[in-house]
């Protein structure tokens, strides 16, 4: 009989192995979809660290995703940096931005925290529109195939696209898993469950929250930067309120506070919208109905229910 901790590691390792093997079987259309899903799921993993584990509901994470997206996109289109440097610039942009916003927003809590993050993200979105000369606003800009080459490998090629997305997802998932199993992660969960008590035990709650915002913002920015490099499109819609709501939706659906939940929620939502957009243009209706149902019936999400009913050892 394996220990619970080992089971947990094997389960997540199994998921990664499955995703790796999947690329050899998937038809072209779903192959491309899965690459996109893994990048966006990494974004959701970043969001989940803050929302699912620390209990801080941010309504403005799009600004971090967009910081990575525009940080690396503009580094290539405006300054002609190479892909590796652009990636670093994107992550650094998200890191700095999340430190600034975190320092300010953590002075508030509860509903005020949500509105403050929402307002900062809105200001970020408007800033993207305001500098339309460089960002080309809503229309966005495209990165040429020739500019998206890393170590001689073209990132616009199907196989390397899938593999890059998979690597990003691996990094995010393993980082998240290691984090929540560590001492640091346990403190975060303690903060979520009972903030006053954690403070009473002598932990510097605000410092832990601040570090988590930076970590969460940086992972989101990494996902954003990778998105720009893999799919070659940078547009203002990625900075809009919708892209702050989406990770909340994916995480809630998959299970807040579970490592694998963001991926499950992302796959579910992606194919739900994919199928319904074939039927109607009002496909966001599906998102709305799912949100209401989640809030009312399943606040724990899919993997949250699985954990509380079947696999109690899942982290």
């Amino acid at each position, binding site marked *: 009989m394996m220990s619970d901790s080992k089971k947990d590691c094997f389960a997540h390792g199994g998921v990664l192995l499955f995703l790796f093997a999947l690329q050899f079987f998937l038809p072209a259309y779903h192959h491309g979809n899965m690459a996109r899903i893994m990048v966006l799921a990494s974004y959701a993993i970043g969001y989940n660290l803050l929302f699912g584990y620390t209990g801080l509901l941010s309504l403005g994470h799009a600004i971090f995703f967009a910081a990575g997206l525009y940080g690396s996109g503009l580094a290539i289109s405006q300054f002609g940096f190479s892909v590796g440097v652009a990636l670093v610039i994107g992550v650094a942009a998200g890191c700095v931005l999340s430190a600034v916003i975190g320092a300010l927003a953590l*002075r*508030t809590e509860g*509903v005020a925290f949500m*509105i403050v993050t929402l307002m900062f993200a809105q200001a970020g979105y408007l800033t993207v529109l*305001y500098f339309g000369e460089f960002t080309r606003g809503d229309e966005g800009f495209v990165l040429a195939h020739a500019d998206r080459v890393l170590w001689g490998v073209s990132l616009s090629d199907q196989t390397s696209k899938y593999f890059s997305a998979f690597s990003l997802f691996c990094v995010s998932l393993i980082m998240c898993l290691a984090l929540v199993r560590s001492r640091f992660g346990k403190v975060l969960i303690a903060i979520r469950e009972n903030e006053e008590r954690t403070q009473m035990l002598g932990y510097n709650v605000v410092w832990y929250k601040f570090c988590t915002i930076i970590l969460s913002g940086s992972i989101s920015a990494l996902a954003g930067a990778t998105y720009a490099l893999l799919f070659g499109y940078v547009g203002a819609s990625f900075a809009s309120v919708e892209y702050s709501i989406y990770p*909340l939706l994916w995480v809630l659906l998959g299970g807040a506070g579970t490592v694998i939940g963001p991926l499950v929620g992302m796959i579910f939502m992606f194919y739900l919208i994919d199928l319904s957009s074939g039927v109607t243009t009002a*496909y966001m*209706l599906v998102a709305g109905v799912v*949100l209401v149902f989640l809030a009312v019936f399943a606040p724990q999400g899919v993997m949250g229910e699985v954990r509380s009913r079947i696999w109690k050892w899942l982290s």
Partner: protein
Amino acid sequence: MDFGPYLMLAIMEGALTAAVLALTASGLALVFGVMRVVNVAHGEFFMLGAVLAWWVTQLAGGSPVLGFLLALCVVPVLVGMLAAFVDMTILKRINYDPERTIVATIGILYILQQVTLMTYGPEARPVAPPFNARIALPWIDMSDGTLRLYWPWGLSITSYKLFVIGAACVVLLGLWALMTKTKLGLLMRATEQDREMALAFGIPVQRIYAIAFGLGAGMAALAAVLIVPIQQAHYLMGGDPLLLSFIVVIIGGLGSLPGAILAALLIGLSDGIISIFFSPTLAKIFATLFVAFVLVFRPKGLWGTGKP
């Protein structure tokens, strides 16, 4: 046109914005005050008011006056009833938990918006104003030491815009009377102050919540009916009123009605004046950052008497 009349025009337009904003925001402030929840779908109730107003005037046929009057009476009631229904079916079930309410109302936002897109369509449609006479305004000119009254070209307001400002004042006075002079207002204020105690005194808190939520949405719909002859009805029109109402409610102190009305005046007037000097996007950036900083450094609002 000189600077003076130009400013006067901006103030007139600002007063119109302020009037509509005060109505919308007082609805949001009412809901936040009584129920302690943030209704993210508030802007969609505004949008629904405008779209239903178009629909009612179409049904009424020819006469714009009749159609408009009908819309003014029927639409806020319809939207209010829908909101009360939403409260009883969804918000009640999640027990008004602040965070889950935000998630649920975001869901309601998308449902209302997308159902409107499916039924009403993506077009922006106008509603004919019931009356629309142009009223020229005089301006005082001081030259050679003598005062002279003259009518500069372009300085005018329509009778309908004046009516909107007047109507908003009347409705806000009515809301004030409702909150301070009637039994229902007393019950709402009691619930606002202490939910448990109100419950202990036999106040039907659940019903008061439904009424407050309906009334708040009705205020937004009323504001939309008033503005729709000036601005067209469109399924995405709820975003700006939501953002502006948020700003107003936060600056006025969360949940405080007089604070919200004062803040609406400030925002509406300064919006009219600022947008002359700056690009509207830049003005919006400053406004959103301003709200964020107010919340960070003055969490009780600029005139902070409201409870946090």
